[in-house]
């Protein structure tokens, strides 16, 4: 580490050269002047005007390089600044174009996670290459890792490659998943499972390659694996258990992104299956539930999307004894068929369930396409029943209770009252 710091400190020696300072002043003055003088004035203007402002800076930098060249002075640093700034402006323009084509959110995500880090890496590497030999700086040993010297380049690889593997693997894997889905006619869930499994493989392989590339010998890796196994037995047992559970669930297919599961009485959609936990979305209150993967192993899971995505729903309703049950059943089935979001096939089915104290109890069973819409469709069907019953003068009776009070000294039979509760609005 000391050697690297000394190397970096040594670069300051270039600042004692007047021609380096001259170029540095030209770049700094133009950049700072633009940042503090021009940018605030253009902040509220349209993007095109702001772009013109940036192009003005680019032009100013280029002119300063030309001026220095005319004076017979080195201009390489200014030209380097021109190139780097031009690339950055190119990326900004590309961002606007991409946002118009694919939307702001995915473009922001692409830039935040990939483009900006890559540009930063490029900038750091090219800057070092201006001052020193990138190869030799990369070869400077930093410290020992598992008894092997870790070079600066190795450390950079160790931190950047896994990051870019995680971030970039998303795209080729999504392409592969889409291709396989088209070729083999896979379901969305299977596609997701294949994508996640491929991603894990890619990341795992990449990490092993990095370890090999930076010179960690197999013995050290084996020692690390041994240490991990002890760690697994004690500290990170749960983490590892969740990880294995997640992989298992992916291949088993019971919990995959896009599946609808019944959690605590509510249907929830699986949004993602991570290394440790699955993230589920609950429609009722727009909540996201983070459920450890191993919970799906130890508890019964109810899914509506195991073999298909249809769900059979049911509305319970009562009708007075005086109405013909067959008429009521027919009406109920008609109501269900008339509901736009109830599937015609399998056909809705109404049943007489039981004879209640004050009414005959019926059930209307019907199928819906998306389990997540159950509550809304149930409400629609119930309202439609109410209207239809109202039109057909079918009474939904409310329970009636007759209280008889024994006569005592304080009361007379005339004071005894029959009390009934009425539900307002009942047909």
């Amino acid at each position: 580490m000391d050697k690297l710091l000394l190397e970096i400190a040594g670069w300051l020696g270039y600042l004692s050269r007047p021609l380096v300072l001259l170029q540095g002043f030209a770049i700094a003055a133009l950049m700072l002047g633009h940042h503090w003088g021009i940018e605030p004035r253009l902040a509220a203007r349209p993007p095109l005007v702001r772009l013109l402002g940036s192009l003005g800076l680019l032009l100013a930098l280029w002119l300063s390089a030309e001026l220095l060249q005319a004076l017979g002075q080195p201009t390489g640093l200014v030209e380097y600044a021109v190139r780097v700034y031009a690339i950055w402006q190119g990326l900004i323009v590309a961002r606007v174009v991409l946002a118009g084509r694919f939307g702001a959110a995915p473009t922001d995500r692409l830039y935040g996670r990939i483009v900006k880090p890559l540009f930063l890496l490029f900038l750091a590497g090219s800057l070092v290459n201006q001052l020193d030999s990138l190869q030799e700086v990369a070869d400077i040993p930093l410290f020992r890792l598992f008894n092997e010297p870790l070079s600066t380049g190795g450390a950079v690889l160790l931190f950047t490659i896994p990051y870019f593997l995680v971030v970039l693997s998303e795209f080729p894997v999504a392409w592969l998943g889409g291709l396989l889905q088209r070729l083999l006619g896979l379901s969305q869930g299977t596609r997701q499972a294949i994508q996640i499994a491929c991603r894990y493989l890619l990341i795992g392989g990449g990490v092993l390659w990095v370890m090999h590339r930076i010179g960690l010998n197999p013995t050290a890796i084996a020692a690390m694996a041994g240490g991990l196994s002890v760690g697994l037995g004690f500290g990170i047992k749960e983490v590892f258990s969740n990880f294995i559970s997640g992989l298992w669930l992916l291949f088993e297919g019971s919990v995959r992104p896009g599946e609808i599961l019944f959690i605590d009485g509510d249907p929830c959609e699986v949004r993602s299956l991570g290394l440790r936990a699955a993230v589920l979305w609950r429609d009722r209150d727009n909540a996201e539930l983070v459920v450890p993967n191993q919970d799906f192993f130890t508890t019964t899971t109810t899914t509506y999307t195991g073999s298909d995505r249809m769900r059979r729903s049911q509305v319970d309703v009562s009708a007075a004894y005086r109405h013909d049950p067959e008429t009521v059943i027919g009406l109920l089935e008609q109501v269900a068929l008339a509901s736009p979001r109830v599937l015609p096939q399998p056909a809705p089915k109404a049943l007489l369930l039981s004879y209640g104290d004050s009414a005959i109890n019926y059930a209307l069973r019907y199928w819906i396409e998306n389990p997540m819409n159950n509550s809304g469709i149930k409400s629609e069907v119930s309202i439609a029943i109410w209207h239809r019953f109202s039109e057909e003068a079918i009474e939904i009776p409310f329970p009636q209770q007759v209280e008889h009070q024994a006569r005592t000294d304080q009361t007379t039979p005339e004071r005894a009252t029959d009390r009934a509760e009425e539900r307002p609005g009942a047909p």
Partner: protein
Amino acid sequence: MRRRSGRQSPRAPRILKLGCTLTLLLGLGGCSNGFLPDTLFIYVENESDLSRQAEIGDSHEAVLQLLKDFEQVNPGVRIQVQYFPSEAIVPATALRNARALGPDLLVTRLFTALQLHEQNLTAPVSFPGKRFDEIHNRFLSRFRLANNQFLAVPLLAEAQLACFNKRRVPVPPTSLDELIALSAKGMRVGLPLSAPDLYWTTSGSEAKGSLNALLESDNSNAAAPTRLDAVEQRQLRGWLNWLDDANQQLNVEFAEDVIELRDRLGKGERDWISCHSLWLGLLGRQLGSSLGVSQLPGRAGQPATTLTHLKVWSFGEHSSPRQRQLAKAFVLFTLNPVNQRRLMLDVPGSLPVNRQVLIPTKSSDRFAVMTASMDNSIMLNLRNPHVVEQQGDQLNDLLRQLILGTLDVDGVLQDLSAPGGAPPDPGTP
């Protein structure tokens, strides 16, 4: 007024920041002896175009010790060294010079130093007084410019030798004919495949002058191409015939990468090679007492004439006054008798350029051979390095074709006389 002052107030910190930044930059720039480190940037040319091994070979420690000693006597000075392969050092220097980030000093071969000077990538320097009185004039004279300036300064001399395995070759050949004869008896010979490294083989056919003329002729002028006269043609033919004969020998092998020759001798796959004195350290460790060293064979028992190999210092173009002062001090530090002697002993295969250093020729056969080879060497008059490079590349290409059998001696001579002509027919015997 209130509104105006309100408008100005957010700008005040900005102007303050700008002022502070500029002050900091000015401070950094103006106080080179203050908190800015005194850094000396040195570029070193590697040994082979095809190898990343440093020119100083396996003597890294000796050089690092030299740097440490200098840093010790100049507290606060830090020396940063970067290594470049031969083919990269000139472009790399040009690239960094274009940014004013070039080196303060360069350690290169003589030819590279001349190329750098020709392209104005290095600066001539003058040393006051008689600082170089102790330096061999035959090394120094080539670098002397007008006004007592030097385009480069010699650091160390190296010799071209014959290295062999004494168990297989008890008595080394003293002439080119003996070399061929020995190879016919089963001695495995390794020769380099480049015109400068094969220069010593011209001794047998007295083609030195012709080759010099050929290398230094500017054939880029198509209107006036080089004409080889009959004598030169005859001499060159003799030389090419010898190379062709050698190539026909079962036990003679030409190698494009000279490092390969060294490695093969070290592994016992060759018995005799044309070698460079810098390899002696490594070969000594590999072969031990079996390593034999002699002068390269010439004609009629006379040793061959070799090219003088020098490591030279060149000075960077954009050094600050302080860096130039330190660079000069460091160069003089490396040239003083104590350090020249230390380099001679610690960097195997090096000879001092300082006359005051006594070379142990009586106690060491290797130093005796190296000194003799050096005394028997000549320095080409490389007035136009780019011409020599172009001619050398063309000659190397033709030699390669000769060795591979795609061109015969007549074809090589024809191409040398008519450069830039049509490529030879591959079917030509």
